[in-house]
């Protein structure tokens, strides 16, 4: 009976296309919004991923996120270096600053001070310039997106000058780095230079970046640092998790995206449920005739299941395909840079939408199952 079910379904072009549109749109909305949410929240960890050399981040005991910490005294660096199992430890500064652009506009930037000697903390992917150029006085390395924001237009990029907190800064390199959650402009400079760019109090060091000695478990070393110094020390992936949890807990993002995902689900249920119900109702006499002839309720359930599975398969393929196309089309833009399509979201969306379609199909069929076959003789 499966092919009869499919012919009944596909023969009514308007309802068939309506069902595919409903499922496809719902799938697209759910998958796309969930993907944006995951990628956006995932950006909370990008500042940490950008420093692959460090597997331990040490900070003030009350620190909650990369952008939410209290500065440490320089003496803490020596204390951390003295903890058994620490291979090396370097200072790391993250502070806000203001830049006057060539057009005279004000732009908020993040100044990131990296260890003067090792330059640990500078992103690896240089588009222009080099790490060593950072050793020049006033040198800064700017992220690609931030550079375009400050210096719109074309022309040579290295050697451009700007005013950072009333001090002259010179662009010595452009780096390709995934944006952080706040998506601000990123200026990398030497730690000592950063202290000059960003005036402040006696304690300036935001973090201490450390690496566990070979053979040592970074989590265990982090525990030792905490025990020895009273500071907070987090293994790198744990620290990424903390930052993501912070964003989820203290921003309205999950709620807003959750609303949109729920809306996609509701719209899908409404369109698919309504259209499926209309389709079944329009075919009620035919279903009644089939029941009179001797088609069992079980066979009719299978027919509707086949119809549901067919439209779910095609609709989900359309929706997930469009979601992938969207991400692939826009992940080179500044707004969506680094975004990717997790397969788990596609699989989860497909499962949710498939269940929705089957459930609406089974709801729509209730009238047929209750239909008295004698109705066709009346």
């Amino acid at each position: 009976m499966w092919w009869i079910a499919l012919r009944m379904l596909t023969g009514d072009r308007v309802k068939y296309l309506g069902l595919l549109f409903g499922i496809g749109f719902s799938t697209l909305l759910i998958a796309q919004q969930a993907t944006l949410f995951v990628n956006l929240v995932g950006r909370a960890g990008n500042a940490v991923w950008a420093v692959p050399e460090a597997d331990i981040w040490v900070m003030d005991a009350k620190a909650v996120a990369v952008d939410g910490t209290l500065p440490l005294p320089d003496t803490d660096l020596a204390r951390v270096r003295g903890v058994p199992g620490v291979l090396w430890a370097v200072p790391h500064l993250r502070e806000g600053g203001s830049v006057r652009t060539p057009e005279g506009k004000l732009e908020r930037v993040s100044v990131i001070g990296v260890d003067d000697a090792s330059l640990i903390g500078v992103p690896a992917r240089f588009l222009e310039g080099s790490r060593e150029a950072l050793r020049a006085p006033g040198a800064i390395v700017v992220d690609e997106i931030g550079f375009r924001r400050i210096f719109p237009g074309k022309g040579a990029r290295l050697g451009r000058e700007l005013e950072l907190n009333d001090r002259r800064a010179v662009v010595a390199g452009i780096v390709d780095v995934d944006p952080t959650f706040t998506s601000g402009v990123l200026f990398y400079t030497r730690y000592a230079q950063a202290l000059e760019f960003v005036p402040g109090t006696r304690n300036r060091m935001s973090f201490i970046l450390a690496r566990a000695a070979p053979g040592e478990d970074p989590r265990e070393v982090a525990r030792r640092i905490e025990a020895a110094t009273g500071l907070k020390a987090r293994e790198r992936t744990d620290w990424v998790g903390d930052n993501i949890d912070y964003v989820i807990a203290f921003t309205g993002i999950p709620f807003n995206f959750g609303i949109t995902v729920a809306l996609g689900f509701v719209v899908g249920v409404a369109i698919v449920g309504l259209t499926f119900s209309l389709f079944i109702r329009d075919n009620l006499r035919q279903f009644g005739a089939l029941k009179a002839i001797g088609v069992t309720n079980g066979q009719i359930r299978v027919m509707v299941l086949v119809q549901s599975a067919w439209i779910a398969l095609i609709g989900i393929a359309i929706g997930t395909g469009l979601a992938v196309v969207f991400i692939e089309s826009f992940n080179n833009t500044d707004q969506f840079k680094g975004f990717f399509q997790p397969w788990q979201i596609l699989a989860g969306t497909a499962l949710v939408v498939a269940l929705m379609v089957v459930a609406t199909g089974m709801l729509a069929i209730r009238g047929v199952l209750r239909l008295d076959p004698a109705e066709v003789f009346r």
Partner: protein
Amino acid sequence: MSAVEIFGIVKGFGTGEARVQVLHGIDLAVEPGQLTYLVGESGSGKTTLISIIAGILRPDAGRVLLFGTDVHALPDRDLALFRLATIGFIFQQYNLIPTLTAAENAAVPLVAAGVPRAEAIARAEAVLERLGLGAMARRLPRQLSGGQQQRVAIARALVHAPRLVVCDEPTAALDAASGRRVMELLREVALEPQRAVIIVTHDNRVFGLADRIIGMEDGRILHDGTTMPPEELLA
């Protein structure tokens, strides 16, 4: 063995004061090889009776034996499968599936019984050929005239070689000439020695084609013979 034997069939609809008693203890036997007309005015109970005979409506009381099987003693699923194997239906409004071709529509009972698609359609095309619709087998119902759709419905009722064929007003939507042709066709292709055909009809122009005419009024059989019933039963 009789094709149909019914004993004391009682059926009513509604409850309380709104209850309407439609059948009042009907007894009847129909033999194989007979073309039987069930006639009567609207509301006489003939559609209810044929629905009960065909196993698509449960009686309040009484028994229906089709070729010795007490059909209303069967659970719903077994009853559906019994109908599929034993009964061919021709509905007044044809009830063809609009998105299936004539051959595919005619093949539905075979497909429902598990016959492979290609074989079912081939058998359906053979029946359509007998009914003079061989050239129309690949057409959709909307591409056929009313009389042609009726013949597709007849093909669907006969394709699985049922032992009982029930028809509800098969000529109601046809003009006199087409109606007579359908009745002649039914007599020619549906009636076989081992098969009974019961037709509900108002159409007194075709009474001459019946082996037996049963006239009903107010849920009772008032006429049973080979001749036309009294005029008042056909009002």
